[in-house]
């Protein structure tokens, strides 16, 4: 580069700029790459995290849900969904007996 940036354009640089920025450029480029890699790895867990939040949220909401407005059948259905048990006549009968004894059932008016 024959032209003089200082003489013609008045551009100056800090003392030892090129010597000092040499290592900095290397560290920045290599470390930045690592940071990006880590961020990518983390991003793979995002869908799992969201799914986990929904599942936990579902259980928390259901465990705290007030069933005052539910019918017997609705409550049994919800319970069967959580417990994974099949709804049979026997299951509904057991459910009614258990919950009636705990005074948790409100009948539809």
């Amino acid at each position, binding site marked *: *580069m024959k032209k003089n940036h200082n003489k*013609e354009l008045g551009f100056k*640089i800090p003392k030892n700029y090129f010597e000092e920025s040499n290592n900095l450029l290397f560290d920045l480029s290599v470390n930045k790459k690592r940071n990006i890699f880590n961020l990518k790895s983390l991003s793979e867990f995002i869908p799992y995290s969201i799914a986990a939040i929904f599942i936990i949220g579902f259980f928390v909401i259901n465990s705290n849900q007030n069933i005052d407005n539910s019918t017997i059948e609705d409550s049994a259905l919800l319970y069967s969904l959580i417990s994974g048990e099949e709804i049979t006549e026997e299951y509904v009968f057991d459910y009614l007996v258990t919950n009636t004894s705990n005074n948790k059932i409100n009948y539809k008016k």
Partner: protein
Amino acid sequence: MKDEELVILLKSKELKNKGFKILIDLYQFKIYWMIRKVVLSHESANDVLQNTYIKIYRNIDKFRQESKLSTWIYRIAYNESIRFLSNESKIKKISIDTVQENYTKKLYADNYFDANKLSVKFHQLLSELTVRQRTIFNMKYFDELKFKEISKILEMNENTIKSIYYDVEKKIKRDINE
């Protein structure tokens, strides 16, 4: 070291960092001055230089050797410089070419600008050009790149570049001593 040898190092997993150190040594000076003439202040040039090297390191595997390594590097540096100007003009809500006043402000705000008679006159003439005209002039006059290489960096027709350069050079030579 030849470009081909350096590319082999840069594309090797074990020797990539060694190759990258050599690449910094080889191009740091040239890239810095190319960027500085586009963005003007030292601080901005330093930021753009860092971003350029980060991009080079991250994308070296994508370099397909269809052009010279230097052309590919200058292209990244030029794109990063334009991206910087673009962001700057968005923040200040001005067009990238509406910079004559902005150009002078940036120069005088920079601690690393020596306002001598020749430099002030030179910048006054450069500030009257569009970013593209100025870039072409700087790449040819100061960085001494060949027209062919400039055309590849800017993705423009070589003859158009020649025509722009000679027009600008004529104007600057005529006005510099006025």
